[in-house]
């Protein structure tokens, strides 16, 4: 292990994301008995599954001549470099250099704390000592029975905070996703109730009964000619995670709650790009493949509708901060920026100013 103090990580040096935080770098099904290369968290990472099932994540760079270790091979639980056969254990220690008897001093690859909670593989890019006792966010919908799950991943050329800002913002829906919303979004939208804690912010609102949007009717099988109460909640859980919950309250007398949980892990690749690994869980139509495919189009379509805007904003501003004017409805997103700013100040030790740099 390298000495990973407060300032040792983030080789790009330009990220505006906290390092002492769990981020999703891969899904469990992506990591097996072969070498997975992934650009994430300011560098190139290498992930593989050891014989005992534990996932190891290392820097994907041989300390000898910088060959990507992912071009090499996995030999048992050891990684053999493709270039000169330098061999590394899962903890990053060099255990063999074929051309000589002893291993050169300092021949090691940085390894990262890993916490796998299927379907996500979480990695801690900061000081490993500070990861002890800190759990990744718990996602009951992904581990409890009773949920049908779909998911995927995509990359966007936008800073991760633009994605959080977008996820906490409901007022762009009538403009960017007009065909995906129900009437309540434009007619008499209820106030956003914003709930804050030290490191989290949520919005919540309950709509007056309205007919469902087309896809909601198709997914739930509820009739088009009735009105339903809907609730929605979105939470900035951590710099690495946003979770939405959308409820449709079914008709009397059962008042069945049709719940959709949309989980987005935002993992900075570098200051201008983000990897989104997402899952969507629902508590209805469990075995209906056509519902799964309909919802896949909704979730993927919503993100790809946002994509050109967010990438254009990134190209225009070069990053997350620097807005000229905010509106009242931006309150949750502004709070998320403040949370990240405070976390950055704590870990980077910038106590002498509270202004955003």
């Amino acid at each position: 292990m390298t000495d990973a103090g407060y300032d040792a990580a983030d080789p790009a040096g330009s990220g505006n994301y906290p390092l002492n935080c769990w981020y999703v770098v891969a899904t469990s099904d992506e990591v097996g008995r072969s070498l997975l290369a992934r650009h994430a968290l300011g560098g190139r990472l290498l992930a593989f599954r050891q014989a005992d099932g534990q996932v190891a994540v290392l820097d994907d760079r041989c300390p000898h001549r910088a060959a990507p270790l992912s071009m090499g091979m996995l030999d048992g639980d050891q990684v053999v470099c493709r270039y000169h056969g330098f061999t590394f254990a899962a903890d990053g220690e060099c255990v063999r250099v074929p051309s000589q008897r002893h291993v050169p001093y300092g021949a090691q690859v940085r390894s990262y704390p890993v916490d796998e909670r299927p379907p996500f593989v979480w990695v801690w890019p900061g000081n490993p000592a500070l990861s002890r006792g800190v759990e990744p966010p718990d996602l009951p919908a992904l581990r409890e029975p009773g949920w049908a799950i779909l998911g995927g991943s995509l990359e966007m050329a936008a800073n991760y905070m633009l994605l959080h800002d977008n996820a906490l913002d409901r007022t762009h829906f009538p403009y960017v996703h007009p065909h995906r919303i129900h009437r309540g979004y434009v007619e008499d939208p209820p106030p956003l109730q914003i709930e804050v804690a030290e490191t989290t912010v949520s919005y919540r609102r309950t709509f007056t009964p309205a007919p469902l949007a087309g896809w909601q009717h198709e997914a739930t099988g509820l009739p088009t000619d009735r009105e339903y109460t809907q609730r929605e909640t979105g939470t900035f859980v951590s710099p690495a995670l946003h979770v939405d919950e959308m409820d449709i309250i079914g008709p009397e007398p059962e008042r069945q709650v049709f719940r959709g949980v949309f989980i987005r892990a935002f993992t900075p690749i570098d200051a201008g790009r983000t990897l989104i690994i997402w899952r969507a869980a629902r508590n209805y139509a469990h075995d209906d493949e056509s519902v799964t495919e309909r919802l896949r189009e909704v979730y993927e379509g919503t993100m790809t509708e946002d994509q050109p805007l967010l990438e254009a904003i990134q190209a225009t501003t070069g990053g997350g901060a620097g807005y000229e004017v905010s509106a009242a409805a931006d309150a949750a997103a502004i709070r998320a920026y403040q949370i990240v700013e405070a976390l950055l100040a704590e870990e980077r030790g910038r106590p002498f100013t509270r202004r955003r740099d």
Partner: protein
Amino acid sequence: MSSGEAPSAAMLTVFSERRSDLVITAREVRAEGVISLTLADPGGAQLPAWTPGAHIDLLLDDTVRQYSLCGPPGDQHTWRIAVLLDAGGRGGSVKVHQTLKAGDQIAVRGPRNHFPLHAAPRHIFIAGGIGITPILPMIAVATEAGSDWRLYYGGRSQASMAFLDELEPYGERVVIWPDDERGLLPLDEILGDPADGALVYCCGPEGLLAATEQRCAAWPARALHLERFTAKPQPEPAAGEQAAFEVVCQRSGLTVTVPPGTSIIDALDEQGVSVLSSCLEGVCGTCETRVLEGIPDHRDSLLSEDEREANEYMMVCVSRSKSDRLVLDL
């Protein structure tokens, strides 16, 4: 878009702090007059993350009290607080001591953090009495982060000082200083020379805070971090202080007049601008608001002299305005 009448911009968002109904899983005596309570979600759900220096509100029947989280940093399954019995206080601690027991439900708001620990090569922690509580998770994190830290912990007597057992493993980094054996903390010695790159964190009674503030006058700006549990004595209001002034809420696009005798937060509330608040006496920091234009008349107990002069933030529950107009990030 429909062409219906848009609701008032200021009514679009309503702020509140996270409220949790938790169960007390343990009540333990930690010293003379000090108990700790361990809180957890009744269903075992994960609680939101917090960082050292954070505190929560206990929502008692008719009163709200703030307590620092003093359990292991990063623990998202249980929150621990410690409560000093203050018979001469406002009654919150008496109620906690006399009525709360393991198995009881308790409503909690937060956490929030206005005493955050910033990374530094060296930290000097100064705790007086129950002021040890926010410092406990701080030294755990400072240790892991490799800071060269010291803790000076004063109290009436060893018997009255909580968590001595948990401090023991830190050895010589912790200096235990009971008044009855050693007198008051030797602040001149502890803070005599401004140490390069060191940050000072102090929590305890007003006398200790004031003395520490005074000793740190020669230290670099913002090296000192204080946490107060009660309002700092304020100078008498200057003549003309209670003049009316205007507050422009930038995001909402609203302008509100604050008349004499009405607080900013109340005037905003009347116009439907929702601002988070808790203590309403300038102690807890919940209503901290960014100032975009204008000169606040700071009347809180949180901001340091440098922060007051910077005029970047203000507590809108007690502070007013020196200028005719304030533009706030609301």
